[in-house]
């Protein structure tokens, strides 16, 4: 990896360069902040080690200018300086530095702090990869536009609202919200296994076609199950798996593929279910026009306790203004963005309420027989789950 060393003292610059070479980095030296900015414009540097006190553009000012730029990727900045004390640390980090090392620097300390920086940078790659996979899964369906981006925002809003709810306080923290924002786009990744004849059919699906379409939850869930087995410690994979498996479950147990009921459904699945439904209702699809927020809200309210978790519906109501803002913000990106037209419903409302709402490109069938056969362990439950038993949902 390339490191940019910014230091007006030649001796310190040479010592840093030597140490970084020993650690396996490619190093470029800049004598001052101005040279550094020119180097950063090349886009080559993701790691910067900079002095604080320099003529014209200080290390602090360099940090500010780096953060103000719209770079293609994050740039991790370590300040190396003989300034010390809490106040200076605060000033450096407030200006946008990621880390702070005091002079005289110790090579081993520099090495481990750079490694920490590389870990941060690798997360950015992970996030991009996840979103790219989700986008790839959606790419065959031209109807979805900015669906993934809206889903991320709706899910974040709901999770954030629920994090303050007594029932979810132990489950939903800031990290949970971020993870759901990251993994919610993967909810329909199983669609890659659905043939075009079903996925892209403009009209109503027959029973057999609907059974095929429902399998996208199993395909996505099983694929991510395999990933979780390979990396059991990766929390984001666990959440993505749960979302893929359960985003078509219904609160009353009549969803698919497992027929889970109530709080057997991981909360991430319950959140994505509502977010997906809202997006399906408020955007134009090949089988329906976009509904207004008010109409979508009415339909969602009618699904409270049956399709949707009442707590999640309540969170939606408390954040509905933000939902409208998100919907409008992404409307321009949506190829089929139109003014909502409640009078031209392509399907009956009854179908939307009774059947799973969120399967894009599908006119819903009333049959919601649970699909799954395999036992699945979901991250919010400690015992393996099986398909719904004959015991009625509480």
């Amino acid at each position, binding site marked *: 990896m390339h490191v940019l060393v910014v230091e007006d003292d030649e001796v310190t610059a040479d010592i840093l360069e030597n140490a970084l070479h*020993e650690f396996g980095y490619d190093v470029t030296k800049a004598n001052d902040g101005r040279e550094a900015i020119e180097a950063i414009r090349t886009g080559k540097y993701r790691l910067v080690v900079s002095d604080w006190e320099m*003529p014209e553009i200080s290390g602090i000012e360099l940090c500010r200018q780096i953060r103000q730029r719209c770079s293609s990727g994050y740039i991790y900045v370590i300040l190396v300086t003989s300034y010390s004390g809490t106040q200076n640390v605060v000033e450096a980090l407030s200006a946008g530095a990621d880390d702070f090392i005091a002079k005289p620097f110790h090579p081993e300390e520099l090495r481990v702090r750079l490694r920490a920086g590389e870990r941060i940078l690798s997360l950015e790659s992970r996030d991009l990869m996840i979103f790219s996979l989700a986008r790839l899964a959606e790419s065959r369906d031209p109807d979805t536009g900015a669906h993934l981006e809206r889903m991320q925002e709706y899910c974040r809003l709901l999770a954030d609202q629920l994090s303050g709810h007594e029932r979810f306080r132990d489950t939903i923290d800031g990290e949970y919200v971020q993870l759901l924002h990251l993994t919610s786009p993967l909810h329909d990744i199983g669609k890659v296994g659905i043939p075009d004849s079903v996925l892209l059919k403009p009209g109503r699906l027959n029973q057999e076609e609907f059974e095929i379409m429902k399998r996208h939850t199993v395909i996505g869930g099983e694929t991510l199950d395999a990933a979780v087995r390979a990396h059991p410690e990766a929390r984001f994979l666990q959440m993505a798996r749960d979302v893929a498996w359960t985003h078509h479950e219904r609160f009353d147990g009549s969803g698919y593929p497992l027929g889970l009921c109530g709080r057997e459904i991981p909360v991430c699945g319950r959140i994505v279910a509502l977010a997906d439904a809202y997006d399906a209702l408020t955007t134009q699809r090949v089988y329906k026009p976009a509904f207004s927020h008010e109409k979508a809200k009415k339909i969602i309210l009618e699904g409270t306790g049956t399709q949707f978790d009442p707590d999640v519906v309540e969170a939606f109501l408390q954040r509905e203004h933000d939902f409208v803002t998100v919907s409008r913000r992404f409307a321009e990106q949506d190829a089929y963005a139109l003014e909502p037209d409640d009078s031209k419903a392509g399907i009956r409302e009854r179908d939307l309420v009774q059947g799973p709402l969120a399967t894009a490109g599908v006119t819903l069938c009333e049959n919601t027989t649970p699909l799954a056969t395999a036992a699945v362990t979901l991250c919010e439950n400690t015992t393996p789950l099986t398909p719904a038993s004959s015991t009625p949902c509480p």
Partner: protein
Amino acid sequence: MHHEQPIEEAPRPLNPDELLARCMGNIEFAERVLTKFQQCFGEDLAQLEQELFSENVEEIARVAHRLKGASANAAAPALREQAADIEDLARARKITEIPPHLEQLQGAWSQFVEEAASIEWLEGADS
């Protein structure tokens, strides 16, 4: 019994072990660093004297800060300490108090040059 405060040792002109560690055990590189340090420090010291003559406190502080950092990384703690004192005085705009500290810095610099000329690196270090 009278307990005496432990006497703080005066900082050394040069810590060759520390410098060699910072140079990743590379003696040849450490020697190049010392050569460059002596060249740069000499130039900066001359500039410091000039800025003191001009009573330019901002520049005195800036140059002293650079000397402090370079001395720290070159494992020259005595120089670092003197440069730090001058920087603090300049930032406090106590310019009249700087000359005796500059003299001490010049004295420490002479000791450093002498020490650097007679340095013996650790056996077994990379060359």
